[in-house]
């Protein structure tokens, strides 16, 4: 297993967000996290990236317990990429500088080499002409694709995608989803929290339904989304269908 979360608990004051959650992810696997707002999808991703501290339980990456407080979080984060719902590109840097910041400053790669690699990625997703632009000159879809590249250039063991299409206009969602589909083809291990059920069905190897801080049900997309076992999963999917999102 690449990632194993065991009995993870996370509270914010009186609110229990993760309540003994178990989840494991295999290498090259794509796991889609679905569930209502507040079911703990984003919190789980933040815990895995150590941006949030767990209140109990363990998370292991490559067999190493990363929730151990003695571990240096910076070293763990080098192995994990995170893409945010609101892109979070650095507005004072060009797209290229956004992407090469971590390779150069954290991984000590020669700037020329990091730049060449970034350009390769940008050309691959059709953004080469935006390399020297500042993020506010890009559309949401372009910004998000640049943010995905930024999280990817260090070849992380695991890529976390936190509702990466939720802030996008509907006609821009496609370009980001296409990119993620390509990454799956490259064998990138991903956990994606998403509201795009149709996309989860297409790209995920496994769908996990989060409810009340636990993984209530998980399995192949066709089963979880098409023929759920749990009543609460059915209720959730019924609401999604009602809203016209499936």
């Amino acid at each position, binding site marked *: 297993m690449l990632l194993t979360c065991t009995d993870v608990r996370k509270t914010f004051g009186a609110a229990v967000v993760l309540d003994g959650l178990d989840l494991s992810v295999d290498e090259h696997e794509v796991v889609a996290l679905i569930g209502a707002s507040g079911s703990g999808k984003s919190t789980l991703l933040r815990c895995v*990236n150590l*941006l949030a501290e767990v209140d109990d339980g363990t998370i292991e990456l490559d067999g190493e317990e990363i929730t151990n407080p003695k571990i240096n*979080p*910076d*070293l763990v*984060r*080098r192995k*994990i*990429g*995170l893409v*945010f719902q*609101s892109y*979070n*590109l*650095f*507005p*004072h840097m060009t797209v290229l500088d956004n992407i090469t*910041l*971590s390779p150069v*400053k*954290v*991984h000590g790669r020669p700037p020329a080499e990091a730049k060449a690699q970034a350009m390769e990625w940008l050309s691959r997703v059709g953004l080469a002409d935006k390399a020297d632009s500042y*993020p*506010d000159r890009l559309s949401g879809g372009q910004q998000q694709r640049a943010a995905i590249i*930024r*999280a990817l250039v*260090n070849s992380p063991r695991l890529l976390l995608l936190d509702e990466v299409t939720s802030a996008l206009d509907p006609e821009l969602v496609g370009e980001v989803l296409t990119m993620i589909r390509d990454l799956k083809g490259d064998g990138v291990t991903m956990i994606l929290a998403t509201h795009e059920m149709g996309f989860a069905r297409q790209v995920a190897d496994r769908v996990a339904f989060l409810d009340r801080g636990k993984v209530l049900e998980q399995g192949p997309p066709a089963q979880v989304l098409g023929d759920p076992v749990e009543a609460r999963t059915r209720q959730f999917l019924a609401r999604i269908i009602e809203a016209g999102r499936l």
Partner: protein
Amino acid sequence: MTEDSLTVHHPSELQLGRIAYRRGKAIRSVLVAALSTAVVGTLLVVLITGAPGWQRVKTSFLDVTIARKYLPAILEGFWLNVRLFVVCAAGALLLGLIASVLRTLRGPVFFPVRALATIYTYSFRGLPLIITIYLFAFGIPGLRLQGTPDVTVLGGAAITITYGSYIAEVLRAGIESVHPSQMAAARSLGLSYRQSMRHVVLPQAVRRASPALLNDVVSMQKDVGLISLAGPIDAIRAAQIASAESANFTPYLVAGVLFVLFALPLIGVTDFVTLRAARRQNAGT
């Protein structure tokens, strides 16, 4: 849209009418502005030159021969103000940067530095600059320590430390205005707290704080004149000496004009930066 704009467009009758109407209105506004300026200007001149004491004020404040006679001495003093300003501004910016970063450090280890930085910004923003200059320029030499620098350096240090505390607070506000998600994004890329501050948070903070920062620098530009209280002969002290010699206030006016002239480019830059910042903010994303 770009293809549409390539076709030649002839404005309609209606649009031509609008253009003519707007042009007429613009001409009228210019005329009204010119007229009201002339009226206000004339009134001011009449009011001041018609005042009963105008002749006396004119001879004691606006004596051209006295101005010409003492200008070189005042200019020489002003050179001290200029040099002092450059050194103090650089020092205060550096000091402010350090204090503001120290105040944002988290973790119990940093409690003493955080507390010190807080005490510093609170006390020196409250303490009148004049008193700080007196304390530094006359208090420190009073200790009779070996190697005490001269009063110009001590007075300059007082100005630097006082303005450093203002600048620290402006920068801290700038740091705190950068959304936490920027820090999260930086940390998620493996950057350490220090690297995130240096490459991601501080550059944005300084940009956002730059109008307020420049405003402090403009304000400092005139406050370097307070160095005269410590004794060295700067523009104001030179004017005071000239004024005592000539029994006339004109030298003060000369020094004042020099300060204004020196401030003008800085004020211009400040206005430009503020305008640009506002425009960028309104552009929004």
